[in-house]
């Protein structure tokens, strides 16, 4: 509803690009699914499948889900990210030690 450009601050540009890729992947998800259904098929003729190959390659690059990287939500760290919390290991440790992670405790056995 806002007419002007939305300026929000992501941690860094790489995070912004990752966000864009996720949005595109969401938009093209259905089409990719359908074209892949035609490609990974043993019933339809091969010519049709080759045409489908070309079509899917013609889609924008950022629309494929493979290019998404699960970065840390707070620091944009690409490695060492736990999927359940979407946080990098350093941030996770920081919060857990300050007792700000619900149900997380230092292991001792």
């Amino acid at each position, binding site marked *: 509803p806002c007419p002007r450009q939305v300026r929000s601050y992501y941690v860094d540009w790489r995070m912004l690009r990752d966000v864009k890729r996720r949005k595109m992947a969401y938009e093209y998800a*259905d089409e990719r699914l*359908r074209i892949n259904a*035609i490609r990974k*098929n043993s*019933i*339809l*003729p091969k*010519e*049709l499948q080759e*045409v489908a190959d070309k079509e899917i390659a013609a889609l924008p690059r950022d629309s494929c889900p493979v290019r998404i990287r699960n970065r840390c939500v707070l620091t944009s760290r690409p490695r060492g990210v736990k999927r359940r919390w979407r946080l990098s290991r350093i941030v996770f440790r920081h919060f857990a030690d300050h007792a700000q992670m619900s149900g997380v405790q230092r292991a001792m056995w």
Partner: protein
Amino acid sequence: KDKSASSEDSTPEGAAKRQEDGPETPKQQLLDIIGGMKVEVSYRKKLQRLKASESKKQAMNKLEGLDSEGSVPQGITEDTQRGKPLNPELVKAASLVASSLPRNKKQTESELLAQLRRHEETTDTQKKGGTINIRNVISEMTIKRQSPAQRAARISGHISLQLEEDGQRRRRERSSAQSMDSKRSLKVGKRLNIFTKASAEPEHALKTVSSPTIWDLEFAKEVAAVTAQPPRNGFEEMIQWTKEGILWEFPIDNEVGMEDDAEFYEHIFLEKHLEGFPKEGPIRHFMELVICGLSKNPYLSVKQKVEHIEWFQKYFEEKKELLQEI
């Protein structure tokens, strides 16, 4: 008589005391008084005088000889007394009173006569020693409407009474009686719909259709910011979070936001969407597999499934030339 009436203005039981006085041709005196009375005298005093006269006449009638009636079952006496005409002197008195009043004469007269009849009945039954039959008294009075909530409470109370045993029955009677007797009853008032799903209650507030200007939005925001006090306790905090959507609504509804109006057969039997495809060949085989997969998918809505099938239809139509070469 005037003095006695004025002294005992507040108590209508003054009539009982006057019964002891001997009948001193009250009819003529009363008629003279009423005829000469001014309008300024209150309505109540007149009623009491009428009651006094009526009670004296009843005493006289009883002395003359109503002993033959004896104690007859109440229902019959009440009904016959209704039909029994009032004393003609009373009727005359009532008409004179009504004429002296400035308001509706006929209405006041009929009301006075009705009141007299009622008092006659009550005094008769009291003298005979029987309990007052409230039925007749109430039937003349206007009906006070019960709220449906109270009516439902009473009906449910009755049903529960029938089903349970004696010991529990009395307990339930008392508890239901308490809930009804106390001024604040449990089942009255607007429901909060905390534990039941809020059914589509028609909103009572009028919805004014107007394009909200930016100034209106700003004003609304200001008002909300000023009136929104910080939550005083944990409950209010939880209420605020529920409104915002941070906290789920309890009891947890697994289908929040998922309103699938389609029945199960619309999800499973998708063959009717396959009409645009050729009936034989690899395409049909492929589409039947697609439909089999879609019917087993519980996460998609019927619309999405139909969109999938339609996309395939378009795709294969575009590639028709290609397919015919093969």
